[in-house]
């Protein structure tokens, strides 16, 4: 029974990581109605930047916040320069461009930072160890994820800016007609997603070590989490993340074996999209014609 509980806890820990990247996916979706395949690579790239700053001698939190700001700017810049032109493009073009972005960031990171794996520090390592089953970092990462969730939820639900972003994603023309500066909203959405992704990356790196392939698997789990929870729902994505983490661990240990864990994500994605596309917590939008 103890082993089972340990697996459960471990699943929650990894789930927290998936949830944090899923939050970035949800942020992009809520602000632009796009699914960003390059989110993982953006996060990986930002984490490398943090690593460079740390190597240059910056203290952890200074590097952390500087990276978040840089990631925000990068995200907004990508939107302004690239995504904006796709405003009226067909779905295929949009998907291809995101895949291209994934590929470019991946190779750019390899070229700039090299292919050797490096370690990345955790800010929670020295903190008091609470409860034997989770390491300080795991607890800290879960805490960070929940904090980001709370902020996102409050932002979209209660803040005027959040409302404007939701409206812009849904209907840019009508948003213009009430005076919303749509370009700014979209850039803001991408910037925030970039920032969230950077945080996710910096939480993942201490666990799996930093290299260009760090986010490939995580991205898939994050997608599974977002789809399961409802790609437009931040609480859903976090719940989805924990569920995916636990499922992956339990199924991996007791049913399919560790090697097939990614397949769990695959099956999950397909099953959810087919059976209940709006996810567990997403609401289906009804439109009277």
């Amino acid at each position, binding site marked *: 029974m103890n082993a089972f509980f340990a697996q459960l806890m471990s699943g929650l820990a990894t789930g927290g990581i998936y949830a944090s990247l899923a939050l970035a996916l949800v942020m992009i979706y809520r602000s632009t109605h796009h699914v960003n395949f390059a989110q993982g690579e953006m996060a990986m790239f930002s984490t490398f930047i943090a690593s460079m700053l740390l190597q240059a001698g910056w203290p952890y939190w200074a590097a952390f916040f500087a990276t978040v700001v840089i990631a925000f700017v990068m995200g907004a810049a990508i939107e302004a320069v690239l995504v904006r032109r796709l405003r009226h493009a067909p779905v295929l073009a949009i998907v291809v461009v995101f895949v291209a972005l994934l590929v470019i960031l991946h190779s750019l990171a390899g070229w700039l930072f090299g292919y050797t794996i490096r370690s990345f520090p955790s800010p929670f390592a020295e903190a008091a160890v609470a409860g034997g089953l989770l390491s300080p970092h795991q607890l800290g990462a879960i805490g960070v994820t929940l904090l980001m969730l709370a902020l996102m939820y409050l932002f979209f639900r209660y803040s*005027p800016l959040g*409302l*404007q972003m*939701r*409206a812009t994603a*849904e*209907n840019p*023309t*009508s*948003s*213009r*007609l*009430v*005076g*919303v*500066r*749509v370009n700014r909203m979209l850039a803001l959405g991408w910037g925030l997603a970039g920032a969230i992704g950077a945080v996710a990356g910096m939480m993942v790196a201490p666990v799996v070590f930093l290299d260009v392939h760090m986010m490939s698997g995580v991205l898939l789990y994050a997608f599974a989490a977002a789809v399961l929870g409802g790609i437009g729902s931040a609480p859903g994505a976090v719940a989805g993340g924990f569920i995916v983490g636990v499922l992956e661990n339990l199924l991996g240990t007791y049913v399919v074996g560790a090697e097939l864990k990614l397949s769990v994500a695959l099956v999950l994605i397909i099953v959810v999209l087919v059976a209940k596309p709006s996810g567990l917590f997403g609401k289906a*939008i*009804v*439109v*009277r014609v």
Partner: protein
Amino acid sequence: MTDALLDVRGLEAGYGAGRVLFGIDLQVAAGSVTALLGANGAGKTTTLRALCGLIRLQGHVTLGGQRIDGMATEEIVRLGVAHVPDGRGTFTGLTTEENLRMGACTRRDKAGVREDFERFYEYFPRLKERRHQQAGTLSGGEQQMLAIARALMLRPKLLLMDEPSFGLAPKVVQDIFRIMRRVREEQQVAILLVEQNASLALELADHAFLLETGRIALAGPAAAVRSNEAVRAAYLGGST
């Protein structure tokens, strides 16, 4: 009218290679209701879209003396132009109240916004009932009212209305026009009303312009346009 709020000279516009408007002149005086009439395809919706910058245009458009042709839509809106588009343009995924809040999103005066909420919930009691309901589930008439209320939340100087009667049952249309009459009395807003239903529009309007295949065919005070023989024959059912 040299002191017109909206002054349009030589407006040309179209979609891609197809030109729809071939040089339109029209004016809307502050606080007045101006009707823009014409059959399907005459270019009425195109005119409104061009005026708020949703499509490319050529020509000279001034609002209160300031050139607005070539400006981005959201900037024109911030100068005081509200557009109730054909199709309503409702934010279907947001609630009724959120739609109205979006209308007010550029305003800084919180007290004024609260006042307006009360006032528009009084104009449109059905919206108040459904204020936490998802806007996409409202009926056609309710969505039209929501669109009008949302536009009014901007406290615009000029309200552009595109076919408010479209697709609505006659009783609902009457309700809407009654509200528009009230709006015109209580608010100091100029209205440019595009309508296929010429008789309704001419009852409400002070001035009227008739658009035929992209050109202004007739212009003048509403009463004069209403009694014009050709107009009666073509648009008002021909009866005396």
